[in-house]
């Protein structure tokens, strides 16, 4: 399992802040996204605006994810 955290508008659209997802060793973020979008279709239109983090650091689309990792779905940041 991995823990997927959602923030801001992404949490709003998904209607949840945390999703547990069963994944196999070596799956990439690019492969996880369709699973999330299928579970929460309202997330799908946000895809091109989102960044992702794995274990608290920005990660590229081809980054691998392992069971136990924490993935974060990050809408465009708007601090300040």
């Amino acid at each position, binding site marked *: 399992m991995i823990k997927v955290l959602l923030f801001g508008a992404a949490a709003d659209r998904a209607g949840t802040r945390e999703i547990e997802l069963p994944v196999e060793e070596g799956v990439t973020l690019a492969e996880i996204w369709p699973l999330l979008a299928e579970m929460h279709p309202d997330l799908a239109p946000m895809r091109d605006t989102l960044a992702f*983090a794995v274990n608290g650091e920005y990660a590229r*689309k081809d980054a691998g994810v392992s069971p136990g990792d924490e993935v974060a779905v990050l809408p465009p940041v708007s*601090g*300040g």
Partner: protein
Amino acid sequence: MFTIVEKPLDVGALIQDAQRRDCGAIATFVGTTRIDESEGAAVEYLEYEAYRPMADRKLEEIGAEIEGRWDVRYVSIVHRLGRVDPGEASVAIVVAAPRRGPAFEASRYAIERIKEVVPIWKREVWSDGYVWVGSQVGTRDQVTGVRTFRGMDSGQRIPWRALR
């Protein structure tokens, strides 16, 4: 000091903490909540949330970037979360340096970087709904209108495609 708090910022105390005998300048940037109005509706307050501890760590990284670029002797960034009422401070940046040039430049750099890389989000709560700034997602009827794009002109987006 790089920190995230859920209470009002004491800007005076933050400036006092920056005073040093080897510095001739303290530059301070304070971001405050602005009230926008349109067609009979107004922003009532802003609400901030963060991905912690990543956001805390990104603030520290900005501090390290500044110390690598400018001759500064003290950098402090404090960001507030939760409800922030109109005119209140949401972020305070204090930089002390021997000379004013680096102090001004470093404080400007800090706020621009916060808007680029620190995982903090704000929601405008209007009298008729809310809008996530930068995402244009919310409950207002006119959420697709131009006025809800206010957060998108500051270059803070890190799109998925840019990370590919």
